[in-house]
């Protein structure tokens, strides 16, 4: 393998792997599963890099892949019928897992904030998480969630307002 390609991948891996793992861990029910999804996510990136495919934004690409893999995992795990998936939409599956928060190895304030984010509506949860925990730009979030930048911006402001009210 070309060392330049490996170095490029390693740099992205070092920078983003923790964020992707964290994103997965707060959404699936166990650490092992989160590691598996993280590995699969970076495997996709690696395949794209060695095939010399153009990826404009690696962060957005990684979060999009991770989100899709989480949705796939939920579909398999919960054995939900196709009708129900169509009825409820895919968005419900990549939300923060409430049952997981108490098991996370973080301090009380972190658990508290995560708990409050999970209480927000589906529209705001992932957006606020990506913006304030993983520091994704509005453009990157729009790309991950496949919505316009304008809609992203509006949802961030409204979600933040709602979060503030909950914390008070």
């Amino acid at each position, binding site marked *: 393998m070309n060392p330049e390609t490996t170095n490029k991948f390693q740099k992205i*891996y070092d920078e983003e792997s923790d964020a992707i793992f964290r994103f997965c861990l707060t959404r699936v029910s166990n650490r092992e599963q989160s590691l598996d999804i993280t590995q699969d996510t970076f495997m996709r990136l690696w395949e794209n890099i060695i095939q010399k495919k153009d990826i404009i934004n690696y962060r957005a690409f990684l979060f999009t892949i991770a989100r899709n893999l989480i949705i796939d995992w939920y579909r398999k795990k919960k054995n939900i019928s196709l009708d129900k998936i169509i009825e409820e939409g895919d968005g419900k599956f990549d939300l923060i897992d409430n049952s997981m928060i108490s098991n996370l190895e973080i301090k009380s304030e972190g*658990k508290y904030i995560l708990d409050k984010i999970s209480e927000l509506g589906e529209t705001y949860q992932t957006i606020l998480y990506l913006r304030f925990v993983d520091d994704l730009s509005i453009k990157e979030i729009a790309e991950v969630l496949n919505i316009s930048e304008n809609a992203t911006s509006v949802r961030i402001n409204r979600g933040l307002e709602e979060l503030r009210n909950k914390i008070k």
Partner: protein
Amino acid sequence: MKNTNDEKMNNGLNEIKNIKMTSSEKDHIFQNILNKTKPHQPPVRSPFFLFSFNNSPYLKFAIFFMVILAGGGIIISNNSDKKIAISPAQNYYREMNQANNDYLKNQNNNINTNNEDNKIVTVINKKENDNVIINQPKLATSMTMTSEALSPTIIYKTKKNYLNNISVCYKNGEITCFPGPTDIINQRPTKLANGYLLKKMPGDVFLGITIDEFIKNENDWFSFIKVENIIDYNPYTEIYSCQPGLSEEEINKIILSNNIQNNCVNILNQN
């Protein structure tokens, strides 16, 4: 987020950001990704790409070659009074037959068999002017003689006694060929002079499975063909490729007269 001035929220977010993989988990995943990946292979090009009308340069070449080939065929048939135009495949088989014919003729000369009753005649081409006649010893079919003529005689010695072990071909971490349970009965190596063995089974490495075990488990024999069952990757101390079609008696003569180096090729380093 600066505008919120909410220390509690900032602290909470910072705590969430501290969720990380351990360094061993991180390294493990990274190594997994690098090891799992197969080298990218370019897609296989369609054999009909030349005829694609979307690609005009190829089309021009295709037409050019078609004209040349057609013209070439006409020239061959015109210039030959006695011969007919032949395809490359026909030409190949004709050359093969000629080679076999020469080889068999030499063999027959060596054993001085001049008796016409001891030969059969095979006509390869039905055209009268183009007959190829092969003289073969009686009771041997054309197919048998051809295959014997083409496969070299392999004799070898091993570090340990693998007389009853299965041998398989091993290449790039995989088993690429192995004997079948029905054929293997006739593939036991034959003992020759000075401890040499005559190779009849394919393969360059030995499994820890004996031929008898292999035959006994006729329903489960395939489970034996595993890389884990290989017990010796470099089993040979000597291995030679000799001229095809040698009988055991002839090989023994060569061995006993210390003429292996003159009559055979040492292929130990090639394995």
